[in-house]
Each structure stands twice: as structure tokens, then as C-alpha cells.
């Protein structure tokens, strides 16, 4: 069984990963908009 502190750390790592890729996605969205709509 996984200790709850380890599970919590793993969840925090996932959420950090989500934040980083979401920021990259925002930049991607801006670039896509500029490319398509100009």
C-alpha cells in the first residue's frame, strides 16, 4: 500500500506537470491564433 504522504507528493508532481504543459499550451494557442487569423 502507498503511504498517503507519498501519494500526495505524486499528486503534487502531476499537478505541477499539468501547469507546465498548460502554460506551453497557452503559448501554442496564441501562436495558432496568430497563424490562422493573422
Amino acid at each position, binding site marked *: 500500500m502507498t503511504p498517503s504522504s507519498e501519494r500526495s507528493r505524486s499528486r503534487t508532481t502531476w499537478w505541477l506537470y*499539468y501547469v507546465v504543459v*498548460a502554460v506551453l*499550451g497557452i503559448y*501554442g*494557442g496564441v501562436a*495558432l*491564433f496568430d497563424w*490562422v*487569423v*493573422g
Partner: protein
Amino acid sequence: MVRSGGVLRRAFAAAVLGLGIAAGAAAITLLSMLLRSSTAIGGSCADGDAALADGPCRSHTGAALLIAVACALLCLLAVSWGASVLGAPRPLFLAWPVLALTLGWNFLRDGFDPPMGEGLALGYVVGGVVFLLLGAAPLLLRLSAARDVDR
């Protein structure tokens, strides 16, 4: 051999999950920028008879909307699959609140500082408040439910 296959599968799932989150963020960004580009010309446009609207449309906004929908679908599929393979938290419940709060913020900004020059655009302000409520309510409900489970 089996173990390295498992590691590869998890690495692939993590990449797909990240791609899905990025696609979701890109979809919301595209929709937000489409809204901004629409309100910047008064909220309506026409390609054929410009007398029917405030002005001509910006080009290729339909294509941008289609790309946003495709990104949203990619996000849904990739995040569902990646999170289930990895046992990672599912952030899809955030999609609607983030979209509604983003659009609400855009409406409020245009309401209090209208791009067409009026003092206050009441319609945009009302729309902004409605979108803020639509985004905040499910988010607060979900967070309070999660807190009750943790207790």
C-alpha cells in the same frame, strides 16, 4: 523486456497526457482570443453586406473555431486515456470552469473598457457576471466536495 515495455508505455502515456492538457489550454486560449477579436469590432460582423453589422469579419475565424474544437476533442481523449493508464489525477473537471471564467473575464474587461469607445457596455458586464457565476459555481462545488472526502 516486459518491464522496459511497461516503462515505455508509461512514458508514452505521460507524453499523451501532457499533449492533451496542452491541447485543452490551447483550445481555451483560441476561444478566448476569438471572443476578443469579435468584441474588438463591436460584437458582430458580416462578409457580404457590411451594412447589416458593425464591420467586416476578420479572416479565417471559422477555421480557428474548428481548430479549437479539434484541440478540445484531442484533450478529452488524450487526458482520459493518459490519466487512466498512469493513475494520474483527472483535471478535465477544470475545463468548463476555466473556459467560463476566462470568457467572463474577457466580457468584464470589454464591459468596463469597451473597445468601441463607450463609457460602459452594460451587456458585456452582464454577460461577464453570468459567465463568472457559471464558472465559479461548479468549481467551488467540486472543491468543497473534495475537501469533504479528504476529511
